[in-house]
């Protein structure tokens, strides 16, 4: 039994007034700051685009089919992570683990597709320095890719070294997966904004 949970209130059980446990509240706040981060980047994108005399249409220079596949992959992974959490609530750790592994797998597929996309850009000598469009394309998708990578590491921890907590403190373990799921949905959501604004417009 974790002692931190004993000492610090509301680590596991929700606060009676706010209705959430600390971790979830913290995750929402973190996501608020992430919204500000990506919000600032999107604002920069809009400002730079509006201020530019010419701007290529994403669909004419980027690989839309690949990105569409990636969108589907990421949305599916959002579903699998919810399923993992759902199974944990039903006390079915084995199944939850499978769903977590599926999430990791899908995230890896996303990264591989991203890698294929990037390498074809480099082959055509399109680098971040080429022009503002490519600069933003690489920066925004790159930062998003880092978020995906971070998610992969967290989920790997849950199925690997962090899985032991399921035995000692299943409630807390479930909460952790829920928080990571919230983060994962956010990463998904960012992509859902990125995809049309960079690839389609």
């Amino acid at each position, binding site marked *: 039994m974790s002692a931190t949970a004993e000492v610090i209130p509301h680590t596991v059980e929700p606060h009676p007034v706010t209705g959430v446990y600390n971790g979830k509240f913290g995750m929402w706040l973190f996501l608020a700051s992430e919204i500000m981060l990506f919000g*600032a980047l999107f604002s920069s994108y809009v400002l730079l685009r509006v*201020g530019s005399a010419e701007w290529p249409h994403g669909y004419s220079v980027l690989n839309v089919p690949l990105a569409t596949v990636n969108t589907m992959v990421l949305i599916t992974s959002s579903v699998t992570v919810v399923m993992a959490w759902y199974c944990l609530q039903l006390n079915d750790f084995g199944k939850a683990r499978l769903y977590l592994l599926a999430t990791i797998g899908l995230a890896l597929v996303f990264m591989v597709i991203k890698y294929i996309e990037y390498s074809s850009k480099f082959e055509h000598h399109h680098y*971040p320095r080429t*022009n503002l469009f490519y600069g933003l394309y690489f920066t925004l998708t790159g930062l998003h890719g880092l978020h995906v990578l971070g998610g992969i590491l967290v989920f790997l921890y849950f199925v690997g070294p962090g899985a032991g907590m399921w035995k000692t403190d299943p409630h807390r373990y479930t909460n952790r997966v829920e928080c990571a799921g919230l983060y994962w949905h956010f990463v998904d959501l960012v992509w859902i904004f990125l995809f049309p604004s960079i690839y389609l417009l």
Partner: protein
Amino acid sequence: MSAATHGSHAGHDHGAAHGHDLPFWRKYVFSVDHKVIGVQYTITALVFLLFGFSLMMIMRYQLAYPGRPLPIVGSWLGPGLVNADRSLSPDGYNVFGAMHGTIMVFLAVVPLVVGGFGNYVVPLQIGAPDMAFPRLNAASYWSYLSGGLVMFASFFMKGGAAQSGWTSYAPLAVISPGQTVWLLGMVLLITSSLLGSVNFIVTIVQLRAPGLSFFRLPFFVWAQFVTAFLLLLAFPPLEAAAILQLMDRIAGTSFFMPTGLVVSGQILPTEALPHTGGGSPLLWQHLFWFLAHPEVYVLILPAMGIVAEVVANNTRKPLWGYRSMVYAIIFLGFMSFIVWAHHMFMTGMGTKLSLFFATTTMIISIPSVVVLTALILSLWGAAMRFNSQFLFALAFLPMFAIGGLTGLPLGLPASDIHLHDTYYVIGHFHYVVAPGTIFAIFAGVYHWYPKVTGRKMSELLGRVHFWPSLICMNVIFLPMLFQGLQGLSRRTYDPLVYDAGQAVQGWHFVSSWGAWILAIAQIPFIINFFWSAVAGKKVSDNPWDATTLEWAAPSPPPHGNFLKSVSVYRDPYVYSPPGRPSDFWPQNQPPED
């Protein structure tokens, strides 16, 4: 500590640790206890404060005696920072200027008021055993320290430290040496702030003791609460800006680089500067000031919180207008997000936009006036106890008043035409942060020192520290207002180049001597700080007869803070309640007592 503490903490896991059966490095170095982290923050930040101040003292020598070789330190500085004759070089001046600003804001003052005082005091004041996420708290400190060390190390790297001002305006910052390391350091510092602010908000919302409703929170906690929101929401845009500028520097993108640049006679893009253009230099300024204006309130709100605590305690009466102060700072927090462009009146923005930001700037001055007026009116009818912390808190009031008032001419775009980017600006914000926030920090140190160490700091040394500090602060910063009125541009290495500089050169001389004497005046404080820890007078758990919860814990508080669970029965500052013999009534004392 005692058996009671021992019992309540049985069965700790690896993360949250016992206070006594851990090796030294787990207990005091890689600790997750908010109090240890608070002390770590405080001491690290005080060291950076001294370092940042030293940089400025070197710059002040150049300003007082332009071109004269630096005594003593001249031979310590590397060839980039000094000329062949050991006088400070223009590059060195810019490096020191940029790093003074960066260190003071991001490595000294904010970590002191938020990381130091916030960490130590907030959980105690709300009756919590620790922060909501102790390990996150430790991560925040270590991220801060890494950021600080990266910044410090940049002095010794190829290309030296950043030299484009703490504002790092593009395109200068994109083409200047040292900036990449600065940006990496900033990313670490921003990460630290974000982790900290999440932790503070969750702690204050979720971990309050029973009975401690929001309007029973000490004002300091309110100030930290609003501050945490500012940090949480204002820092990410700076992080975005830092990422974009980093891309400009290492990947050759042109987010902040417009088309058609000719740098040092070379038409861009070149091999060294592969920027193809198309970007906007003003974008950086918008992103930067969107953070940096709320950052100003991050510097001042916790300071107001400390002053409010010290004032209430030493006037022996409740704060006047506690609720209006709380509403005022919440309003301040909101407004601080829509005033940023008043830093950019001279960038050629349209008059309509200028007027919008001038109006919001005038509006944001009102809550500051409310807080200041409330603090001054709190003195009415008091029974003042003039100890060191109260002296510093009292001095804060007129000093902050000067700092705030001198903001008015800068907030109106018309008068700003003459005063923008002059020494008037430097005088203005230093009055807010130096004799303002830093005096509040001193007040906080004297006030909470007995809680941290169980001993009091020397009153005599406190006074020897206070009076010269107060005088010197004014000797340093008042002349800057005159220099600014004359029109002397800031960041001017050799003021004698300009007519305006010659007309006010005497004031540079005065300012510089003020700064050096101020440095000497800090020696009693440093002695007091270390000496009192071992030889100061031992005091009770509540030496100031204070009402808030931190004084209900033992001094120093054990791991887990309170010996038994605390509940709150009344408002934070019930001093001199009518009909009771005692002149204070602690928040946690049950009414039937």
